């Protein structure tokens, strides 16, 4: 497994454990040509990396899972996944996961910067990169839902 995939799994588990007191179970990790690109539906939080590591992290939740995570974290029950609270929570979680990953990649010499989080929502979402040599997708099971959390990373490392 590429170390970017390993760092992704560690960062996602740490953020959910610390902020939501949830122990995630890491399921499969797919890399390279095995990474599915879509179509996806639901809510996607994304953060870009720039510097010695370039790329983007995407975290996809079903609408139901996004609402459950929001409720658990801030105690507010969203009416729908389009509520602003959901976007805020999903974006900030992506920000924390990216920040945790950045701390790990920095120790390997890959320093960089993070973008502010962005949110995608819809039913025909495709995630692709034409130039990233590293692509990875990891699935996680959360104890609060039967829906899976899926995390993509497309990245390029600069020497």
């Amino acid at each position, binding site marked *: 497994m590429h170390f970017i995939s390993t760092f992704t799994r560690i960062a996602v588990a740490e953020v959910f454990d610390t*902020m939501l007191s949830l122990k995630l179970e890491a399921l499969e990790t797919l890399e390279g040509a095995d990474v599915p690109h879509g179509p996806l539906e639901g809510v996607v939080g994304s953060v870009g990396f720039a510097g010695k590591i370039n790329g983007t992290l995407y975290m996809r939740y079903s609408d139901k899972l996004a609402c459950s995570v929001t409720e658990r974290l801030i105690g507010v029950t969203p009416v729908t996944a389009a509520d602003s609270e959901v976007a805020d929570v999903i*974006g900030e979680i992506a920000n924390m996961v990216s920040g945790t990953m950045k701390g790990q990649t920095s120790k390997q010499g890959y320093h960089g910067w993070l973008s502010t989080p962005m949110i995608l929502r819809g039913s025909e979402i495709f995630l692709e990169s034409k130039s990233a040599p590293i692509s990875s997708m990891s699935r996680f099971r959360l104890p609060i839902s039967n829906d899976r959390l899926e995390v993509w990373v497309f990245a390029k490392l600069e020497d």
Partner: protein
Amino acid sequence: MAKRVLSIDDSKMVHMVVAKALKPAEITLLTAVNGEEGIQKAEAEKPDLILLDVTMPVLDGIETLTRLKGIPSVKDIPVIMLSADGGSENIQRATELGALKFITKPFTADALLAGIGEYIGLPRPS
């Protein structure tokens, strides 16, 4: 009089999590969603401590810190950075500008209280 902490962060989720963490210590939380609003509130409210995010729209945390330290009426208010982006370059820059500590997200309520407690006179956790 209750201590007052100003949280400057573009995420309302972070404000809510911080508020929950500070509640047991009976700390009043003031909030701002970007650096410009944060500077205005700092000048108007003179909080006991400022929690400052790094990556924000309008005015980022490093620039906000630079401006805060240039305003005589607020320059001595303790500032703690609270950010997901805890890269060494950010920590070094914030420290050079006068931030007292850098707490990285994710954080626990205990870690946050312990982190700010020494600067606003909270009793040490037993």
